[in-house]
């Protein structure tokens, strides 16, 4: 059909697509440019370019310590969500039991409830038992919203494992535990890694629930940025944003290199 496409229509279509992509990527592009501005306040276009804002970010103890906390929380959440997700997926993929439907629903349900509603509920539960503004509190809250994702990716990996491979190992004399460690686990490792990375990224970028749970002691980077932005929009935040974007992109590229993103998602 290509030869019958009028040139003008094709040109208009391409232009439209380019404009839409520009709109979609505009904030990221602009943040990138602003991050090199030398001035103290927000203005466009930058007068001159430097790494001054980046230097300020690295000299800002609030951001540095929040970054460290976000990293720790993200790593613990990633590992925990993968472990819990693996156990849940195994029981769902390999066992038949009464109430399986309810468990399935329960795992998907957090997708169906707005995070802000969950946030208020978690805050109300955690307040009386002193979990607000603690590492345990924020980690548990993030586990709740990331486990559904890890279950999904791990289930997909498990489904693609041929049961007969496991049966063959059993027939050849491996104990069930051995089969799990030597056969099943290596075969689903792409799903485990993908699930862990997704859980880490969600936790690392999450703001809504964190804002209800953390305060001074365990504030994460997104909550610090949120509070900073309520009063100021200077280029320091742009530099910090670029660093965050690069971390996320770096993690994803590493996963893509390791196992292929398509399999991960």
């Amino acid at each position: 059909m290509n030869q019958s496409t009028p040139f003008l229509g094709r040109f208009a279509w391409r232009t439209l697509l380019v404009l839409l992509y520009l709109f979609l990527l505009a904030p990221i592009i602009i943040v990138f440019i602003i991050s090199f501005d030398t001035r103290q306040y927000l203005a466009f276009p930058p007068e001159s370019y430097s790494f001054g804002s980046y230097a300020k970010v690295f000299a800002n103890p609030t951001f540095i310590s929040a970054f460290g906390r976000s990293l720790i929380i993200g790593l613990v959440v990633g590992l925990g969500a993968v472990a819990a997700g693996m156990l849940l997926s195994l029981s769902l993929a390999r066992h038949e039991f009464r109430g399986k439907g309810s468990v399935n629903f329960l795992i998907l349900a957090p997708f169906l409830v707005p995070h802000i509603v969950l946030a208020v509920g978690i805050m109300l539960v955690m307040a009386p038992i002193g979990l607000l503004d603690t590492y345990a509190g924020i980690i548990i809250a993030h586990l709740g919203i990331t486990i559904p994702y890890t279950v999904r990716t791990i289930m997909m990996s498990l489904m693609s494992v041929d049961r007969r491979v496991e049966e063959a190992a059993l027939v050849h004399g491996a104990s069930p535990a051995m089969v799990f460690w030597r056969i099943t686990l290596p075969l689903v490792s792409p799903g485990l890694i993908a699930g862990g990375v997704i859980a880490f990224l969600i936790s690392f970028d999450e703001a809504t629930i964190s804002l209800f749970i953390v305060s001074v002691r365990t504030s994460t980077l997104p909550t610090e940025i949120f509070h900073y932005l309520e009063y100021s929009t200077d280029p320091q935040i742009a530099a910090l944003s670029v660093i965050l974007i690069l971390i996320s992109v770096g993690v994803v590229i590493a996963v893509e290199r390791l196992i292929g993103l398509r399999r991960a998602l």
Partner: protein
Amino acid sequence: MVDHHVEIEQLVKTYPGAQKPSVDRVSFSLPRGEMLALLGPSGCGKTTILRMIAGLIAPTSGAIRIDGRDVSAIPVHKRNMGMVFQSYALFPHMTVARNVSFGLEMRKVGKTEIEERVKKALDLVKLTGLGERKVSQLSGGQQQRAAIARSLVIEPELLLLDEPLSNLDAKLRDEMRDEIREIQARTGVTAIFVTHDQDEALSMADRLAVMSNGRLEQIGTPREIFDRPQTDFVATFIGAGNFFSGKVREPGVAEVEGLGELRFSGEAPTGSSVKLMVRPHRLVLDGTGAAGVNRFSGTVEHIVYRGQTLTLTVRCGTQRLQADLPTHAGVLPEKGGEITLAVAPEDVTFIEKAAA
């Protein structure tokens, strides 16, 4: 002047970035009402030809003429050709009747006429009364029929079918084979279909165009293609065969090493090297045991019983012959036994364009 309804001339398609053309200088023509099969292995360019005729892709060069008029520049939606896709490509969000009426709606045909013609088309393909069904409620064979009705209702210049039977199971395939043939004969529409299945091509088509590597190898009636293959490719692609290399000693007689004298039909210059072919079912059991023209004695090495036929591998001299014998032919040979096989010179084919 012969009435050529469809004429393909020196058609070439080279995809951008490709080393060699997918379709290379292919020419053929069809008289009105003929059914032509484009036969060849996958990737031979047959589907590309079909899609160029349809207007779905543009040829690199060459002409496609309908009634003498070049249609290459006409956009696909104005070409007025019917096409039955391999996957049928029925519109899943429409009923069967709406699928069939789609082409008529595009042609702004009146409502009452649409109803009439849709009903007639559905009757033709034996889907009477199923017009209000959803596409997903039809069986594979019924979907095939609906796709045919949809492309015939617009009274196309030419009906194109892309691997029409490949999505059906074996039993349904035989049924639809006859059915398509009958519908085509009844409507008199000129048709071209693409297939990789030689049985399908031999049994459905008036003529076959055999393709390989983008080139047209041979075009002819099923009989010509089967009994008189002109190239190595056609001879090996269609049916089984015993192949011999020989030297022509005198007109119609070749000397085959390890076998002896083989008389054949066709004209080859004396002294030239030739390639000859004998179909296994053309070899017959010769009970007399006497020497004569094209008779070869040997030991039965292997027997496969196939119900209606018996496939023998017979060692004659240094050659091995494969023979399909009918199982009702009296006393059957046994493994290790000595037998004599004979073949009439008319059944020994000289492959004209074989690579020497």
